[in-house]
């Protein structure tokens, strides 16, 4: 599945059968090349972060959770990874040798486990295993 296909996914609680939020951003951990959380908008409470292991399923049309209780505020490393400077979509892609390859137009990921399979930059596909870091300036990839 691609990030672009899940852009406005509703987050639905299976116990309450109601929408408890909407997907705003994917939070990616460059150390593991996985989506580790989802930043949400339009949530009931003050929480806006849904960690990957707290979601039931990421389907083609919606994300399901047990209940809205699992939506909390970001903690620890998640705080930095969730901020707007660390969003992967649109980010410049730089090799570890200092060459710009383009910008991230879309991301192919596995909805079963959150693995970032590849970064799509238009001219080429870059395997997620090449990701070395994701910072405010660029996502750095191995050669």
């Amino acid at each position, binding site marked *: 599945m691609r990030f672009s296909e899940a852009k406005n996914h509703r987050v639905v609680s299976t116990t309450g059968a109601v929408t408890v939020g909407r997907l705003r951003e994917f939070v990616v951990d460059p150390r593991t090349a996985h989506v580790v959380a989802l930043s949400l908008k339009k949530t009931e409470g003050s929480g806006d972060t849904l960690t990957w292991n707290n979601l039931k399923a990421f389907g083609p049309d919606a994300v399901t959770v047990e209940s809205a209780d699992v939506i909390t505020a970001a903690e620890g490393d998640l705080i930095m990874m969730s901020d707007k400077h660390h969003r992967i979509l649109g980010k410049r892609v730089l090799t570890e040798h*200092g060459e710009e390859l383009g910008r991230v137009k879309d991301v192919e990921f596995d909805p079963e486990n959150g693995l970032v399979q590849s970064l799509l930059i238009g001219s080429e596909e870059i395997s997620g295993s090449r990701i070395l870091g994701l*910072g405010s300036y660029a996502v750095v990839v191995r050669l």
Partner: protein
Amino acid sequence: MTVLMRAKEIIRRPVVTLAGDDVAQIKDVVYADDQGEVAGFTLAGRGLFAGPKKEALAWTSIHAVGRDAVMIINEEMFDQRRDIVDKAQARGGNVIASRVLTDTGTDLGKVVDAILEIGETARVVGYAIDSSEALGRGGRTVFIPLPDTIAVSGEALIVPSTAADFVSDDLSGFGASVQAFRDRLRGEKH
């Protein structure tokens, strides 16, 4: 594998960590005048109101110099500026805009750039000159190989009179020029 690069292309290039943060930009290229070996770079901050940084980068602290960024492993690789260049050298030692003068007293033009050869090591291999009439190139930019044995300062670059024979109009001919020039100088010493 080595590449030739103009110093002016590297100046202002962002310094990026492998974690993806642009932590500085290149300010000066600092090199030793005898063999042209690059000692390192001084740095400036990024952003509209940023000034020079007291941190610098020795050549050995750099992970890679690329077309779009200078890469370092992380911010712990920074060195201190005073270890790379001292204040007096920094103030008076900029060769850009120095006059190029032969040891026989002919003005060949003004230095506008330095040419770096970058591989495992980095060195200045020559200069780009806005040429005067004495070079007969119609005032265009020409390239001159770094002489082994003549003095240079922030004021003037002194070259042997024979350097004019090894000037090239474009960088592509430059590789051969450097070697031919050094061979000739070595021959003349005997």
